[in-house]
């Protein structure tokens, strides 16, 4: 083996260890292999405030239909804030305001007065960091949304429970104890129960705010597998602190820093050749 001490005569090194890149010559890219998706959500010139403090600055972003988009960035960068703007969850916090710009879902501005936030949240479901099953049976947890909507047809409810639990990859594990408490499930099962509850009301979009941060690797793998399945029917936007999770699960990735969108591109590009040095530094674990 080579003696490392003999390396002192080697050529000078770039101690940042990232190779300097000349952009003088740009090789024309080959045609991309990805299928083009329709835009479902369009965010334009969006400024958002918590009281007097601006949390999001001039965000412009188009999110694809039936795709998984990951929001990444260090704590406080605004990724969760933006996620919560997509179903107006921030309305529940005092002093929040949209000062400029719009969020459109299928060309409808969701921040106008004619949009009912309750109706909006039926279309845009949310899964949180900490699983939050209600202190009810597994069955009742799943159909909670439908009950509120007034659905009483037992056959219909049974069908939705099975379909949603299958959709959340939980059916086989709980089918014999549907009337036991949801709180008796493991952490990973509880999170999948929350996903079942979310998809039971047939939303179009599912927002996930660090859905695996409290789960062990096996439960995480199951949720990631589920995300892959769910994107056939739903548009998914996931906030994650795990770079590898963003790389594994998402089709596109948006990197935020200090309330600004720094880079948005195919996930493959973000993790292979990000165009912004801040993105590169973040995904390589150099800051954040």
């Amino acid at each position, binding site marked *: 083996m080579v003696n490392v001490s003999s390396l002192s005569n080697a050529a000078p*090194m770039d101690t940042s*260890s990232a190779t300097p890149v*000349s*952009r003088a*010559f740009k*090789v024309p*890219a080959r045609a991309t292999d990805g299928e083009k998706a329709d835009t479902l959500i369009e965010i334009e010139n969006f400024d958002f405030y918590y009281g007097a403090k601006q949390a999001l600055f001039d965000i412009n972003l188009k999110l694809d239909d039936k795709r998984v988009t990951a929001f990444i960035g260090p704590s406080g960068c605004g990724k969760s804030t933006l996620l919560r703007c997509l179903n107006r969850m921030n309305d529940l916090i005092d002093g929040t305001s949209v000062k400029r710009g719009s969020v459109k879902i299928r060309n409808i501005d969701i921040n106008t007065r004619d949009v009912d936030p309750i109706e909006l949240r039926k279309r845009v479901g949310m899964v949180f960091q900490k699983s939050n099953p209600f202190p009810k049976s597994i069955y009742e947890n799943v159909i909670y949304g439908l009950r509120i909507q007034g659905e009483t047809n037992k056959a219909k409810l049974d069908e939705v429970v099975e379909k949603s639990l299958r959709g959340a990859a939980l059916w086989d594990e709980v089918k014999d104890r549907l009337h036991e408490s949801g709180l008796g499930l493991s952490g990973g099962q509880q999170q999948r129960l929350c996903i079942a509850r979310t998809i039971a009301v047939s939303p179009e979009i599912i927002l996930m705010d660090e859905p695996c941060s409290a789960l062990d690797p096996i439960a995480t793998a199951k949720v990631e597998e589920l995300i892959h399945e769910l994107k056939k029917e739903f548009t998914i936007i996931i906030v994650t602190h795990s770079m590898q999770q963003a790389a594994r699960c998402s089709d596109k990735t948006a990197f935020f820093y200090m309330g600004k969108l720094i880079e948005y591109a195919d996930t493959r590009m973000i993790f*292979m*050749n990000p165009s912004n040095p801040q993105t*590169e530094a973040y995904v390589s674990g150099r800051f954040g």
Partner: protein
Amino acid sequence: MKRFFDSELEIFRSHLMLMGETAIRQVRDALKALVDGDVALADRVIAADDELDNLEMSIDDEAIRYMNLRAPVATELRLVIVGMKASHDLERVGDECTTIAKRAVRLAAEPPLKPYVDIPRMANIAIEMLRDALDCFLHGDTDKALAVVRRDAEVDLINKQLYRELSSFMIENPATTTRALELMFISKSLERIADHACNIAEEMVFLAQATDIRHREELKKG
């Protein structure tokens, strides 16, 4: 922000540069051994091939370890992949130098067939190509990398000319066959060294821009 394992990448990059410098030295020494009929130098070239073999194994080991434990992405991921591929090319350069050195030993025992003009010219171009390809590694200069790729045709042309010339030697005087064949194989080795320099240059474009330019003839014509 500096990370506690950044030094591993620095060592990796140093090993690759050291391997490049060693390969260039081997080409230069193999050529000198041939031109000067210096058997001792040829023997040193043959013995020094182990250095390149060991460096290739070190680089592979470091790259696998880094990918396994550090989960590199973006530039770092490209660096370890390109490092492994380039080190393989450099190891093959070393093998070609060993071949040239062995033939130089045999040719040293015979009177020269012709003055050495084209072979040193080829060797010098190949050395420049290797040096420029390694320069791209240090500075990410993709213009230079593309120039290396385009220069390969120059070496191919000299190789073909030499082939024709040496063939005519053999036809005119069969007694020259052994020496002419040795020179033909040396010429072929130099042509292969230039090919490896091209590979390295292509790999450096991938490192700098994440774009694969292999087998893209339109880029090679300029």
